[in-house]
């Protein structure tokens, strides 16, 4: 620090000697800009979440198949469930003990359910909640959640993974990161995922933007 006001002799030159420095400075500036430009999807995304949404928007992602379990104790494959009624699905990820963000997700889904019922869209758009906590969310927990949220089984289904081992693969496929939080809760990025009946993730939308999610799903259902 003591050297701050004593520029060293090598720095006091000027003229031709500065070319090296100007060249190197320009290179540093350009490399810096290119790296930041590339990392932020041309300046559009500063968070992982925004990056993930942009990627999906440009290039729909094929979701791998998973074995699922429902509240009745029955099991099915994710692909089979999605393909069932040729619907477009809006998918969210929850764990049923959740008191924070899933509560908002839950009410977001409740409003979507109401919209779908009122507009008679049951045949075109479905809602699917997937629990990423199969250890705690057994069939009973799923049934309790369904009752608490007043799920209309024609519109909204809740399932969990049949095997805990699939948890990492499921979260990675959808780009969900789950972080342990105080009081035994989890924090996770919450969003509405639009998935086609042939298992492609085509759009990720803010969980508050239900109208946009529904419009997007309807656009894909045509």
């Amino acid at each position: 620090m003591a050297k701050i006001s004593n520029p060293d002799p090598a720095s006091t030159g000027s003229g031709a000697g500065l070319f090296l420095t100007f060249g190197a400075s320009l290179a540093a500036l350009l490399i810096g800009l290119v790296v930041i430009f590339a990392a932020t999807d041309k300046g559009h995304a500063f968070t992982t979440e925004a990056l993930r949404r942009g990627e999906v928007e440009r290039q729909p992602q094929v979701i791998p198949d998973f074995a699922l379990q429902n509240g009745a104790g029955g099991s099915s494959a994710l692909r089979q469930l999605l393909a069932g009624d040729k619907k477009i699905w809006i998918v969210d990820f929850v764990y049923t003990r959740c008191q924070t963000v899933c509560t908002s997700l839950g009410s977001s889904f409740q409003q979507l359910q109401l919209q779908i019922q009122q507009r008679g869209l049951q045949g075109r758009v479905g809602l699917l909640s997937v629990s990423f906590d199969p250890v705690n969310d057994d069939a009973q927990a799923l049934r309790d959640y369904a009752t608490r949220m007043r799920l209309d089984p024609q519109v909204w289904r809740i399932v969990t993974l049949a095997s805990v081992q699939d948890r990492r693969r499921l979260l990675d496929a959808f780009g969900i990161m789950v972080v342990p939080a105080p009081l035994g809760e989890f924090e996770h990025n919450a969003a509405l995922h639009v998935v086609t009946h042939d298992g492609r993730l085509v759009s990720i939308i803010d969980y508050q933007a239900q109208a946009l999610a529904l419009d997007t799903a309807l656009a894909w259902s045509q």
Partner: protein
Amino acid sequence: MINLLKSAVLQRRASNSFALLVSATALALSLPPLRALIEQSMLWHMAIQMPLLVLGGWLAMRALAGHRLAQRLARWNRYGLTGLIAAQAIFAYWMLPLAIDRAIVLPLADGQKLVSLFACGALLQHSFARSPVALQLFFVGYAVPMMIWLGFYFTSTDLRLCNAYSLESQVRTGRLLVAWGLALGALWLWAVLRPARSRH
């Protein structure tokens, strides 16, 4: 005379081992078992490990002052211009929430973080030792407000910016970032004003 030399050598050794200690601590935070700290806490990652890396680079370069390497670098870094620009780019990149997430998820990105932030500190020291105050202000005037603004944003937003960390962790990080920003600004002012006063 011999005593003076001896104490200079001892001082040098002490500052070298301090540089080593800081850098080793920063590195250890990326390796198990300490890695758990930066994986679970944004504060440990962004407000402790990352500043330690920069400090480690700074101290290492200070230990190299007068060394051939520092002299060779000086030809490319007149007035500290190259170093300040490069350091600013590195600094800006590691302020991106998505870069923080990547360093937690991808080991390669974490390696890039270790190398680039250490280099950032080394370049800053090399540059500050040879740049006029006006040019230093160009860096300080960017980095300090950026840290303070980002810190306040972290403490006030409801948006979880890093997928890897909880909102609570983000708030605590924000507070420490503001503190670092203020401390760095004050330290720079002190360093700039002190020699000016002693010259009169």
